[in-house]
């Protein structure tokens, strides 16, 4: 029983990490007013690139960096479309996402069926030997802790710094921000690239830390759940992180229930993250006022500098 508990709680942190990174990147982009639906494709590209880079170089760090850069490059295409060519953000996101999925399959093809050593688990502060709490909290790999750090950092930057204020201004009233003199397009570009980099890291975690392999369909909808998490968390990083950890726990449910001997059709368990996403989305969105208060005003709207 204790072993199961440790497995669920500890695994929850790891399972949540890919979605956490992707959602943190997406919230920055959305706060700046850009709806980027290509997260799934960016994560996939990141995952494939990371696996390739880590396999060829033998270093996880290289894998993560390569993944971040690759996904950022993909997000640059998206940025060019919505910022430069004033394209419909939904269509552009879907197009780049599909491109990302295709590119990931192409990159990962030669490496299918191989495996590498997963990212090592740490022994933070030497406390991982504590009973129960030890392995759960202090024995995870470095990206889990980095994820937590990013959540806190992004929450602080968005909520309490001038940079965060500028980003939010660009997302609420880009015309006014431009009139004050802020380079709206450049800020949005930076936010989109950041979002891409983070999504790449999230995808990389899947292929070189969580399950040390690459296969098509590895991301399995996590990118879309990350986008949903941003809505659940009403565009606030701390709430989004909470949602990510809850989803991490849910994604472990399949294995946990099986180990507890509960008989549920596997397809129902596979569908459960999506079912729960819908239910929570409906529950949160129901209060239209809350959504209206928190949703960046200019989210998804096309913007031109002389518009």
């Amino acid at each position, binding site marked *: 029983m204790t072993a199961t508990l440790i497995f669920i709680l500890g695994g929850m942190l790891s399972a949540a990490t890919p979605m956490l990174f992707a959602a943190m990147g997406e919230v920055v982009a959305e706060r700046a007013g850009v709806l980027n*639906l290509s997260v799934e494709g960016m994560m996939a590209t990141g995952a494939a690139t990371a696996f390739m880079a880590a396999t060829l170089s033998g270093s996880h760090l290289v894998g993560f960096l390569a993944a971040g850069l690759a996904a950022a490059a993909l997000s640059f*295409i998206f940025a*060019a*479309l919505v910022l*430069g*060519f*004033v*394209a*419909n953000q*939904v*269509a*552009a996101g*879907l*197009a*780049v*996402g*599909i*491109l*990302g*999925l*295709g*590119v*990931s*399959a*192409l990159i990962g*093809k030669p490496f299918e069926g191989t495996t590498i050593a997963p990212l090592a688990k740490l022994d933070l502060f030497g406390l991982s030997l504590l009973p129960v709490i030890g392995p759960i909290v202090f024995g995870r790999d470095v990206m889990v802790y980095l994820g937590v750090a990013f959540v806190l950092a992004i929450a602080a930057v968005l909520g309490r710094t001038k940079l965060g204020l500028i980003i939010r201004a660009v997302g609420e009233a880009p015309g006014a921000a431009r009139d004050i003199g802020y380079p709206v397009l450049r800020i949005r570009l930076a936010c989109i690239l950041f979002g891409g980099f983070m999504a790449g890291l999230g995808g990389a975690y899947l292929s070189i830390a969580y399950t040390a392999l690459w296969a*098509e369909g590895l991301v399995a*909808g996590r990118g*879309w759940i990350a*986008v*949903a998490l941003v*809505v659940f968390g009403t565009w606030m990083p701390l709430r989004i992180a909470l949602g990510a950890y809850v989803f991490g726990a849910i994604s472990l449910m399949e294995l946990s229930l099986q180990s507890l001997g509960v008989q549920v*059709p596997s*397809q*129902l368990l*596979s*569908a459960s993250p*999506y*079912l729960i*996403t*819908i239910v929570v*989305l*409906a*529950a949160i*969105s*129901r209060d*239209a006022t809350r*959504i209206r208060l928190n949703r960046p005003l200019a989210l998804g709207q096309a913007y031109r500098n002389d518009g």
Partner: protein
Amino acid sequence: MRSLRLEPRTEGAQGAAVAASVIAVFATLIAGAVLFSLVGRSLSAVLYSFFLQPFASWNGIGEILLKAGPLLLIAQGLAVGYRAQVWNIGAEGQLIVGAIAASVLAIGFDGAASPLLLPAMMLAGGFAGAAWAGIAALLRTRFNANEILTTFMLSSIALQLLYYLVSGPLRDPMGMNFPQSILFGDAALFGPLIAGTRANTSLLIGLAAAIIAWAFMERSIQGFRLVVGGLSPGAARYAGFSEARSVWIGLLVGGACAGLAGVGEVAGPLGMLQRNLSPGYGFAAIMVAFLGGLHPIGIVFAALLMALIYVGGDFALVSAGLPNATVTIFQGLLLIFYLASSILISYRVVIGARSVEVSA
């Protein structure tokens, strides 16, 4: 000082729309060529097997028509919603649900030779697809839930539902435990449209949908309301157009078309219910809708183009050894270039001296 600027157009530009599509196709070819030469494939082999080989045989042309049918049908339905800014991303799931509904009838009435079976399957499939999309419509109108996310989630759920059904309740008891249903009897199958090919009646349904969609969008009051709602939600609200009704119509129409396409697959080339119902028609149709400029006629051409890419991908796999991901890459690139070149539709390139305000 000479400069290159983009100026908003004040009147529509039909020529620009076609030009944008042509530019997009060429740009895709070039980008694809670059990409594949990087991966070490011969450019001519890629281009030949992808874009020319499908036309070289009657079989190839038949396959293009076969693939174009569902793409055309689904895209027409989706476009009705997209023009109203109702973003249905779950066409794949609605297709699956439609296929399931039709299959239940085909399996339940297996052995019956009634000419009513096929129309009943089509009705059931259309209704099921519409109902599946209707869930998202309800979530949007009652709970204000973003339909992009709900339709996608429902699509993933539908896939799991399919897997469950073909592994259990709908599995062929004499099928050696394969996750698929019985083969449908003749009364539950579409006949071939063009002898010697696999193209079937779903293509006709798609063309009929194109005409109906055109009539609806261009000539009906409700179509007008949908379009206005998409162009300017504020204006639509002021005019008293019901946003909820637009959401319902947009999603139900898209769902029904996708459901019908699902019927076309199980009663057509597949002849049974199985795990692999469609090569991503639901998602490809989203691209087809955008590529066609959300216009019923444009979508016809876009569907043919997308079908060509699919079939070309199959040929390329066999003759040039290109992986299946190539299809996805070409599709993504095409839409990306189309979105980029579409800026020419709304804006005009102006080369000239910078204009200077002169006050008299």
